């Protein structure tokens, strides 16, 4: 068969010579190598919770539900994000805006309950793309660890951006 490249390496297996069979020189050499690592090499560990690596610009982390310039929630509970979500992580219950709540919700319909199950979410960002109101962005941090499954279902208390001037 014709070879794909002209690279060729002839492998010869000679019997070991005395020093190779005696193990010890090789062992001492190995010990010297590991000792070099022990003494001189700096560790490469990032001590995570205290120290963080920089994320790239378009890192997709925890979701946040945005407010507009006047501090009103942008989400109108259209459900497009839930529809586009491949992991079916989003659920919501919509409600009608009552008179006098115009300073809280931008549209006439809003999400009374908005939950994302962070254990299902695959951080694909499709919800962000689907949203017609620019209400959801995955611009947060890594989701922290927790002990119970129910604590991974994030409601509006965790998702909605902090109100303006606060």
């Amino acid at each position, binding site marked *: 068969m014709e070879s794909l490249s002209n690279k060729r390496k002839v492998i010869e297996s000679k019997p070991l010579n005395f020093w190779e069979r005696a193990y010890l020189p090789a062992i001492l050499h190995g*010990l010297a190598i590991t000792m070099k690592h022990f003494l001189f090499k700096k560790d*490469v*560990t990032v001590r995570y919770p205290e120290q963080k690596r920089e994320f790239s610009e378009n890192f997709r982390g925890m979701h946040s539900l945005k407010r507009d310039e006047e501090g009103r929630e942008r989400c109108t509970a259209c459900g497009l994000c839930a529809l586009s979500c491949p992991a079916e992580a989003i659920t919501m219950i919509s409600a009608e805006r009552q008179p006098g709540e115009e300073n809280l919700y931008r549209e006439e319909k809003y999400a009374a309950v908005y939950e994302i199950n962070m254990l299902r979410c695959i951080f694909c960002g499709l919800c962000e793309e689907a949203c017609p109101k620019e209400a959801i962005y995955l611009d947060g941090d890594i989701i922290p660890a927790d002990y119970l499954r129910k604590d991974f279902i994030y409601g509006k208390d965790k998702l909605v951006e902090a109100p303006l001037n606060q």
Partner: protein
Amino acid sequence: MGTADILIKFALIVIIFLISLLIAMYSTYAERKVAAFFQDRVGPNRAGPFGILQPLADGAKMFLKEEIIPTHANGFLFIVGPSLAIMTACIGSAVIPWGQKLTIGTHVIDLQVTDINVGVLYIFGVVSLGVYGVMIGGWASNNKYSLLGAIRAASQNISYEIAMGLSIISLLMTTGTLSLREIAEQQHGWHWNIIYQPLGFLIFIVCAFAETNRTPFDLPECETELVGGYHTEYSSMKLGFYLFAEYINMFVSSAVMATLYFGGYNFPFMHSLGLSENWVTILGVIVLFAKIFFFIFFFMWVRWTIPRFRYDQLMDLGWKTLIPLAIANIVLTGLWMTFIK
């Protein structure tokens, strides 16, 4: 022997026991830290500053784990195995001379639990008993991996004990005594046995690695082919006992190596410093422990450097290399003693 002497001996036993346990505990921590540094990592650093509470956390974890005795295991022997392993590991330290004599008031305290005149043989006996813990545990588990691990441990220990014994014989030819106290005293100052017996020491240390089941000879618990080896079926504190026994064994064999070949508690110029006897003794104890710690570190250093031997290579090395070498060493020592000395 008065009551005071008995009390002192008793206190000494308790102290040595506690020290062995403490060192074994912190060896587990040291092992992880040392391994981490060799591999450019950090190692445990969450429990306490620099992770120094890690052994306690590990111990608590071990105690809280579920205790499982497999249905088809032999219940009695299953428990005897780890108990025997840890017991034989602990009693080895009884004959090691930790230092010279301390004089407090009228009492002269001998820093050695007992100076029997066959100390070397005693150590040997205890070490060979240790393999029963592994064997019984592996056999009682009624699991083929455990059994294979146990068989490996047994054959490995038996093969390497011969070479070890032969290497010690040449040491005994030069020292002329079996008592560890006398051997330590003969190496006064810098007259350490390593100078007269370098080959013997080399054989001894290789065999010590095999006897304590440490890498490169850790075939009894070889994870890649035997799951966990002889302790596959063990859980909770019984597993803890096996792991602990390994570290205590390491401590004791380090102490034996330091005593037999590296002068024990002796250090150069010990009597020309102008210190009082008690201070020399205390310094000696510190020096001995420094040597022991160095050897424990060496055990770990080798573990994170050399890969495991294949089983046939292990037997090859033991029977075809170490035993002939040890015999040659005896002959050389004999020639040296008759013609040169």
